[in-house]
């Protein structure tokens, strides 16, 4: 019987929406392999988040709640994860792909000499998974052969978990963490706040590329996003130029999104960008260049200047909505 442990991130005492697909993955593996699903929430004053986590039918929700966990630090969060692995007897440890999980899971995997698969997109069985390689140009089936196994899972492939009736038992984990003993120290976190929907879970994403030409030009992207209540994304070129924060970058090494509607404005469609959005249900591309590779993945392609097309599009959408 192989138990599963899923680390679910919280922010401000609420579970992060982008982290919930880790639970979906856990539910899927438990259904296939028959082990018991356990969840872990780490932070300070996270009782509400733990109670939220208790609504997903897990055998148990572990909580590591301490002022020491107020700010993320790889070493301290790894200690909490390790305690939860011991307490749950889990042999599969997972979390939705995110900055936190990309730090913590490999750190603990190395401690336990455990193999890890990053950014899993499908479950074959309790130790075999599919994951993208070469910027999503290849789909690999990998088998983890160590006694304990680790996975980060691509949120857009697993979606929101099903809520189950009842409430899981919540168990407090005593994790002895002395921040002064660690070689790393948290110094500061500068949050990039946005009123817009989170890219990872938005239904609609409007994205701008080099064709926006300037920070001012990017406002056109935002205007369309505002109308559609969409998340806002950008290609690497736009972030590198400093016109938008790095948090908006969509691509192989940025965020992976798969919304119902993805509108690419002035984006040429380099392989690395496509890797981050080609799973979207409907893709619209507007670009002046008829040869732009983005048109190869677009369901609807319009060769046009985005600065002319977007105002027309905004007017057209408003009209259709009546």
């Amino acid at each position, binding site marked *: 019987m192989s138990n599963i442990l899923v680390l679910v991130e919280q*922010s401000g005492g609420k579970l992060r929406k982008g982290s919930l697909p880790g639970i979906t993955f856990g539910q899927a593996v438990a259904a296939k392999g028959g082990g018991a699903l356990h969840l872990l929430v780490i932070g300070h004053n996270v009782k509400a988040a733990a109670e939220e986590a208790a609504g997903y039918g897990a055998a148990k929700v572990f909580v590591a709640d301490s002022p020491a966990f107020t700010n993320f*630090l*790889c*070493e301290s969060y*790894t200690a909490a994860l390790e305690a939860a692995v011991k307490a749950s007897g889990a042999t599969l440890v997972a979390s939705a792909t*995110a*900055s*936190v999980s*990309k*730090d913590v899971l*490999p*750190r603990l995997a*190395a401690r336990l*000499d*455990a*193999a*890890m*698969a*990053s*950014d899993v997109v499908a479950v074959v069985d309790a130790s075999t998974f599919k994951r*993208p*390689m*070469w910027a*999503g*140009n*290849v*789909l*690999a*089936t*990998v*088998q*983890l*052969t160590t006694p304990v196994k680790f996975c980060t899972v691509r949120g857009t492939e697993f979606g929101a978990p099903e809520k189950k009736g009842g409430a899981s038992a919540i168990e407090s984990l005593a994790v002895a963490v002395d921040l002064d003993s*660690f*070689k790393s120290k948290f110094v*500061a*976190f*500068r*949050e*990039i706040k946005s009123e817009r929907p989170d890219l990872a879970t938005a239904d609609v994403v409007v994205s701008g590329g080099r064709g926006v030409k300037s920070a001012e030009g990017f406002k056109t992207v935002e205007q369309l996003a505002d109308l559609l209540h969409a998340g806002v994304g950008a290609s690497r070129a736009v*972030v*590198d*130029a400093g016109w938008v924060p*790095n*948090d908006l970058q969509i691509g*192989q*090494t940025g965020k992976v999104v798969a919304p119902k*509607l993805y509108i690419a404005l002035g984006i040429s469609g380099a*392989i690395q960008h496509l890797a981050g959005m080609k799973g979207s249900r409907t*893709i619209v591309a507007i670009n002046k260049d008829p040869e732009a590779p983005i*048109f190869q*993945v677009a*369901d*609807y*392609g*319009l*060769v046009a200047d985005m600065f002319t097309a977007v105002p027309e599009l905004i007017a*057209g*959408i408003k009209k*259709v909505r009546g």
Partner: protein
Amino acid sequence: MKILVTVKRVEDWEVKIRVKPDGSGIETEQMKYVVNPFDEIAVEEALRLRDAHGGEVVIASIGVKDTAQQIRTALAMGADRGLHVLADSAVDPLAAASVFKQLVDEEKPDLILLGKQAVDDDMGQVGTMLAEKLGYGQASFASKEDNLESANEKNKVPALKVQNGRVEVMREVDGGIETVSVALPAVVTVDLRLNLPRYASLPGIMKAKKKEIKERPLSAFAGATAPGVKIVKLEPPKERKAGIRVADVAALVEKLHSEAKVI
């Protein structure tokens, strides 16, 4: 200060990757290879730190015989010497971390820099696993405030702040920018916007021919045996249905409304 930088030989991302019909690997005929782009950024940062603080930049790589070409490229950029662990096939992240740990134990660098992920396997685990194996602090996804058009970038000012036996790193993370301070020796993985790597100059290429690359077989290292991650098969990704071109915005709105039903 002594800085160890790991580099990986990867397929040139401009070349189309095709899966072999039997799923056993990718087509390698006509394949071009380069230094993993994130590792180039790591080499560049190491060179800037060495030039600011004095010391040595050592390149380490695990790979086939031709990996020496990629090590030579890093030496041509300005690194001082190379360590080549000869492996006839890919090693998984845990094994790579184990090998690099042994090199670190021998070389005792003050700082170890790695790219945050390799663009072939996109696993992104080696840096963190290495930090754990060494018991060192880590800072991943290192970046900087100054954009790549800034004077500091043009003047090749190092982004990582090294002083008083610590390195301060600005990290690109979900939702914002995090700053951490790590005691040396430390492991730092680098992200896209840390710097713009230099091209190897012709004099640099000539000098590199004389720089030392010490070669040793993988078998000389403990713990690099059976892979924990076994690749069972490869297949092409799901193809998208071909799309259409629309003549104008009106046509687009019509399609989005009545066909795709998204507005």
